């Protein structure tokens, strides 16, 4: 053992210990500890791969579930839009209306923003179509006059809302030259209502599963802190603040969240690929009008970040509570 007292005194050029650091030095040290905490927490996670994998897998699956539902709903919405394109509103005019009157009404309705196109069917076209239908050809031939009126087929725009189309139908029904309006788009209302319910279910599910992910991180950090209570005790005794002690655990929460968010995004992309085949077949049945919709890139990037924030929050809440008990 060395005895000279200058060994301790020698490296003390500064007069007062508490005034010796500049703000810049402290900031540098603070940054350094953040770097150390981030790396140390990552090493801890890597040192127990099975436990880390299980935690990340549970959280990843929990976060992937609402994403899958969101994907499904988005595609149902697209399917609804694709089907909406083939659903016209038929406007039967009063008997005796002339071709000129039919063209004028067609022009008037074609000018509305929710209408994509208007096709005018003459009474003769209607009769021809009827004659082509099995079982009607004989009956048509027995008629002396053509009793069919002019029919306007309105093609709604794909982006037209159910409310706008409902208003269109109501407006057309009040027109004097119109006998009957056949609205085949009422199913859209039901679909929209169902999608509304679905969106709410996804929101509730996402909230519950986010809470579950938060609890998973919280519990993992709680166990981690409990297993390191001795070390934490030493740190507190030598003057570490709660923030200093907590930092590696917060980074652990961030890593858990980030990795599980990446896993959830990857799973969502896999689900997208799995849906691509069947949706392509469905699309063919609708003249190629249906296209599978994937999750937007911003969402795939936002999920890991949001999950990291969730992990941080879980770790923050639990570590504050645990350290209060230990400190």
């Amino acid at each position: 053992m060395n005895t000279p007292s200058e060994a301790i005194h020698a490296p003390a050029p500064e007069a007062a210990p508490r005034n010796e650091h500049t703000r810049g030095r402290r900031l540098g040290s603070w940054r350094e500890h953040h770097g150390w905490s981030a790396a140390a927490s990552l090493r801890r996670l890597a040192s127990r791969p099975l436990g880390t994998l299980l935690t990340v897998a549970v959280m990843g699956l929990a976060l992937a579930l609402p994403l899958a539902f969101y994907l499904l709903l988005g595609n149902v919405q697209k399917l609804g839009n694709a089907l909406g394109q083939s659903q016209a509103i038929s406007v039967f005019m009063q008997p005796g209306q002339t071709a000129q009157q039919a063209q004028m009404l067609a022009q008037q309705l074609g000018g509305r923003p929710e209408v994509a196109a208007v096709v005018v069917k003459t009474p003769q076209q209607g009769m021809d179509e009827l004659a082509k239908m099995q079982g009607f050809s004989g009956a048509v031939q027995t008629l002396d006059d053509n009793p069919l009126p002019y029919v306007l087929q309105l093609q709604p725009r794909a982006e037209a809302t159910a409310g706008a189309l409902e208003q269109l139908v109501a407006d057309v029904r009040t027109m004097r030259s119109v006998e009957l309006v056949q609205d085949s788009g009422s199913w859209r209302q039901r679909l929209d209502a169902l999608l509304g319910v679905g969106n709410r279910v996804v929101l509730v599910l996402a909230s519950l599963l986010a809470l579950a992910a938060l609890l998973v991180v919280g519990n993992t950090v709680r166990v981690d802190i409990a297993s390191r209570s001795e070390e934490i005790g030493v740190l507190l005794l030598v003057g570490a603040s709660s923030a200093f002690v907590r930092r590696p655990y917060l980074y652990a929460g961030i890593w858990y969240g980030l990795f599980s968010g990446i896993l959830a995004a990857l799973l969502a992309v896999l689900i997208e690929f799995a849906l691509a085949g069947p949706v392509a077949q469905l699309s063919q049945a609708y003249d190629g009008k249906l296209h599978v919709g994937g999750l937007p890139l911003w969402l795939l990037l936002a999920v890991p970040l949001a999950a990291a924030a969730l992990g941080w929050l879980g770790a923050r809440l639990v570590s504050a509570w645990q350290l209060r008990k230990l400190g």
Partner: protein
Amino acid sequence: MIHFDQVSKRYEGGHEALSQLSFEVPTGEMAFVTGHSGAGKSTLLKLLGLIERPSHGTISMDGKSLAKIRRSGIPKWRRQLGMVFQDHRLLMERTVFANVELPLVIGGIAKPERARRVRAALEKVGLLAYERQLPATLSTGEQQRVGIARAIVARPTLLIADEPTGNLDPQLAVEIMGLFGEFQQIGTTVLIASHDLPLIKRMKKRVIVLDHGRLVADLAAQEVL
């Protein structure tokens, strides 16, 4: 100057560890606190480290009452202290260097300065060659010296030690006590709880004797025989 004024400590359950304790330790003095097991030695040090708070009375240092230090201010207070424990309280997964460096990392000292001070502290306790080893590879005495290096590395104004030589052989115990004596010589106030009377007599420093939490004797260095 450490000042205890009518300090009592009663733990939950009713056990009174300290009773109306009053004494002063001037800055730069080295004093032993002794007594039988359960006399209140460790409690006294815990009160100084704000590990426990007194039930009655006031403790002050350089005129500042410790009672005014809130929970959030405890880490800052502890950074002014050096604490040595009988069981070393080392982090076994970290190297000797990292253990000694800990108070400086917490104190926000820059890396080059930290390295300089850690090596100086390790040289002081004779363990510079062991800086890269894990504490588990060292003997009990060496581990204790690592604990001492950690306690002194941040240049504390007050060094408190709870049975620092409890597990050491007599020769090593004398060497450790010699180290504490050196810290006193450079202006550090040193307070050591020990029940090793032969060692205390040999050091010829002030001795505060406790019995069942009460101060029964306060002997100046020249009174210690």
